[in-house]
């Protein structure tokens, strides 16, 4: 196998002064589905933004196809992004365009295909997510789950080499959920794409992914194949996979002691 598609080395990032990622190391080979899991607010979306070059790291680097993302010129970055797709956590459909035009957006922007061919391509992508019949609707007329599926269709419109899915499963009913899950798997296998899936849905994702990274405290806390993860006795992984409240993953955002915050000591002193 050739060099990995993505290589992340000692990656650090902070918003203002608050560190979100401290030192993340990952490699992602081509043609695989990789899951990134972690508590809410652990920096998963931030990590995807770093891979897409939307924000710049404070230290370390992300290499995609042997190019250091944050050192690319704007033109080169845009060239690279043409080969990337990203499904945003909240869909981010263009509200002034219909479902059809949303999916057709990239094709129209980046190619000179005739309108008849665009139509076929778009309907194919919409068919894949089960929404061919909804092509004429406006985004405001879609449910949350439908919007997410349209956004998925839009992100695969140009058959990119890398797709990043930010929580593709939230808001989907069990049927669409497994359809989308297997769609991600099939796209990866059939077109040789690489997929990064950020998700909380442990059970569903363990069925389709090749490798899992756990993100906690700004570092990769654990990683392994789905089988290794399921069998893991590491308290952290165990807690996450089985959804227990007590364990090394804190449920609370870092804060002062609860009692102090509520100014309780005076009353009980």
């Amino acid at each position, binding site marked *: 196998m050739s060099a990995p598609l993505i290589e992340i080395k000692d990656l650090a990032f902070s918003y203002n002064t608050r560190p979100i990622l401290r030192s993340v190391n990952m490699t992602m080979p081509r043609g695989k589905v990789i899951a990134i899991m972690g508590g809410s607010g652990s920096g998963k979306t931030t990590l995807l933004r770093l891979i897409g070059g*939307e924000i710049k790291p404070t230290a370390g680097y992300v290499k995609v196809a042997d190019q250091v993302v944050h050192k690319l010129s704007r033109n080169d970055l845009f060239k690279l992004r043409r080969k990337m797709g990203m499904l*945003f956590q909240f869909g981010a459909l263009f509200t002034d365009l219909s479902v059809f035009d949303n999916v057709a957006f990239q094709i129209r922007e980046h190619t000179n295909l005739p309108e008849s061919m665009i139509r076929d391509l778009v309907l194919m992508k919409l068919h894949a997510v089960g929404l061919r019949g909804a092509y004429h609707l406006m985004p405001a007329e879609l449910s949350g789950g439908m919007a997410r599926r349209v956004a998925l269709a839009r992100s695969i419109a140009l058959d990119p080499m890398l797709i990043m899915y930010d929580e593709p499963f939230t808001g989907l009913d069990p049927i669409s959920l497994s359809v989308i899950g297997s769609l991600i798997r099939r796209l990866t296998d059939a077109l040789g794409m690489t997929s990064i899936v950020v998700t909380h849905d442990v059970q569903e994702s363990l069925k389709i992914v090749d490798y899992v990274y756990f993100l906690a405290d700004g570092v990769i806390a654990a990683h392994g194949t789905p089988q290794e993860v399921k069998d893991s006795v590491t308290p952290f992984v165990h807690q996450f996979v089985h959804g227990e409240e007590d364990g090394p993953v804190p449920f609370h955002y870092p804060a002062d002691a609860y009692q102090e915050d509520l100014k309780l000591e005076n009353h009980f002193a």
Partner: protein
Amino acid sequence: MPKRIITSIQAIGHRVIDSIWRLGRAARFFALVLLKSTTSFLRFSLVIREIYFVGVLSLIIILVSGLFVGMVLGLQGYETLQKYGSESAVGTLVALSLVRELGPVMAALLFASRAGSAITAEIGLMKATEQLSAMAMMAVDPVARVVAPRFWAGVISMPLLAALFSVLGVFGGYLVAVVFIGVDEGSFWSSMQNAVDFRYDIVNGVIKSCFFGVTVTAIAVFEGFDAPPTAEGVSGATTRTVVTSALAILGLDFVLTSFMFRGVD
């Protein structure tokens, strides 16, 4: 007490420094928009679509206001001028005030509150809902694709709207003075044509409205693009667009007028 004074002075200082920052950002953004305008002209259909939203949809308010302003001018002008027996000069008064001042200025104020605020809200919401990020991730530059067409649409629409405002205003003045009150039609038009100079009055009015168009749309797109990505952020930015545009229009009008109409007439 002194502590409170110090904090309030600090607050003022912060605001001043913040405004300077913003002004710098706005200037840089403006340059960026100009730089990335090639797409707008290569794919002019993008601009046409926006002209529909900022120009065509502002037509009703512009036309109706123009008519009423002209009618009021006709009425007031007649009331005053007839005391001196020169009511035929009412055409001159209506036309000159519309072409030089009221047309460009009122149309720009209406345009800022009708179209400018809509531009800001739209761009701000696109930012808040990550549509701009999504676009950038699809390797499409949001400044070139979203901002520049709206900017040029505003710049193109503004002089046309101002001209329509003035024409409707003159018509309104004609309606009141000639049709309702009965000022002689011939002297109404001839005194107007004698006094209104094409080069000095009309062309300068058009130049003014071009300046206003650039100013209002530049403010609107910047406020939208710079808005904090929240509901409050967008609503605050929309308000700022209207307020800043109004101040900018009136201030700029004074500066332009003092350049244009000095020494002539």
